[in-house]
């Protein structure tokens, strides 16, 4: 318990920075709603990355000034955005041609759970009475070449999000490549969950304690 006194792990911004470092120059990237959206602000200088938003824009730019907002220029999270020079607009079927046809290089998503086999659950908690809403999540995990997950390592009540088997309804099976949490960067490899990097004041023992699925030291 004394470990709570010092800073443990990364902040949300630092997590986004870690993801951004792994996005190569010239990538086409789709960012999920929420935490993934932060990634765009942290791509290293000198890398040109093109952002796709599934509602019909390749070349999503930063958030506009209040005075320049166009209610007809929004992202998948329905937030006002801008379009970069060299961007293009297209309809939904063409947009998902990019996704389903494996043209997008990287998708960064949030998740409720990721299993040791790379299964992801991020669209429904399956609670009775909740309105099911899937959006483009299943298309993204089925179609994008590389799926990165950015999420807190544990739920608010302390449960591991990195599990042996997802208990929430699946979004896709065996699709996640890397998971970036506040505690660590973990690659999902054939041999298992390989810890690539740990956050400040996190050691392997601590990390495993906070993780349901078995981890492997890199």
């Amino acid at each position, binding site marked *: 318990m004394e470990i709570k006194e010092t800073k443990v792990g990364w902040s949300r911004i630092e997590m986004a920075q870690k993801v951004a470092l792994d996005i190569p120059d010239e990538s086409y990237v789709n960012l999920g709603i929420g935490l993934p959206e932060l990634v765009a602000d942290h791509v290293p200088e000198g890398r040109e990355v093109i952002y796709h*938003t*599934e*509602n*019909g*824009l390749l070349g999503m730019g930063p958030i506009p000034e209040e005075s320049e907002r*166009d*209610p*007809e*220029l*929004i*992202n998948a999270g*329905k937030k006002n955005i801008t*379009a970069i020079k060299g961007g293009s*607009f*297209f*309809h*939904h*079927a063409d*947009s*998902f041609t990019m*996704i*389903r046809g494996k043209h997008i290089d990287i998708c960064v998503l949030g998740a409720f759970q990721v299993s040791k086999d790379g*299964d992801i659950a991020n669209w429904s908690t399956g609670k009775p*009475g909740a*309105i*099911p*809403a*899937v*959006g*483009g*999540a*299943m*298309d993204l995990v*089925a*179609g994008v070449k590389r799926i990165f997950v950015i999420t807190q390592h544990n739920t608010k009540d302390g449960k591991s999000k990195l599990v042996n088997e997802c208990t929430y*309804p*699946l*979004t*896709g*099976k065996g699709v996640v490549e890397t998971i970036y949490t506040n505690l660590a960067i973990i690659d999902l490899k054939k041999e298992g969950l390989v810890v690539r990097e740990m956050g400040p004041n996190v050691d392997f023992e601590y990390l495993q304690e906070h993780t349901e699925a078995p981890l492997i030291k890199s």
Partner: protein
Amino acid sequence: MINKIVSSPAEAVANIFDGAMIMIGGFGEAGSPIELIHALIDQGAKNLTVISNNTGSGHVGIASLIEHRRVAKMICSFPRTLNSTVFPELYNKGEVDLELVPQGTLAERIRAGGAGIPAFYTPSSVNTSLANGKELRDFDGITYVMEYGLKADFSLVKCEAADRYGNLIYNKTARNFGPVMCTAADQTLVQAKRIVELGDIDPECVVTPGIFVKKVVEVTNPSDESKLVAEERSYPWK
């Protein structure tokens, strides 16, 4: 002479019948043909199946159509959005049905319906509950699910400019589902911010060729849905 221009939203939606299958364009408020939807509320058709990405916000547009109990079933990918309370409440009371479809599958099913493709295979939703009961099939060692083309009796679409042939262009991400929905309905009914002369739209830049459009009405200053929602307005206006 071909002249698809009609004089009012009411005239545009006049033929919509009870039990019709209706596609409604828009992704959130962008591209939502709110004046056509309001005209449809006034017109009174009920027991509708509505295909649209979302279920509307506040008490205007699609949300108002649902609130007035005109919608028996929604086919959509994301039935809850910011300030969407109408659909969730009625859904939980069992007063409206829902067919949940992944967004890309929804777009492709509509495109297929318009293109004369009765069914196709997609990797999206395989190994999830949304593929339950659907036909699976392997191609080159990968499993896909069969999905059916979707067609409608009517599509309601909003665009930026239209000419009397029904050629359309859109504005930015308000394009979204409009072009595929135009192809997939017996009658596509369009509200355009501007009616322009033949030839004013560059033939290289036409997004929806007129062949897919039945009627066009000019709505010069369409409502800004998010403003209406922020102001807590309800349709019909009080």
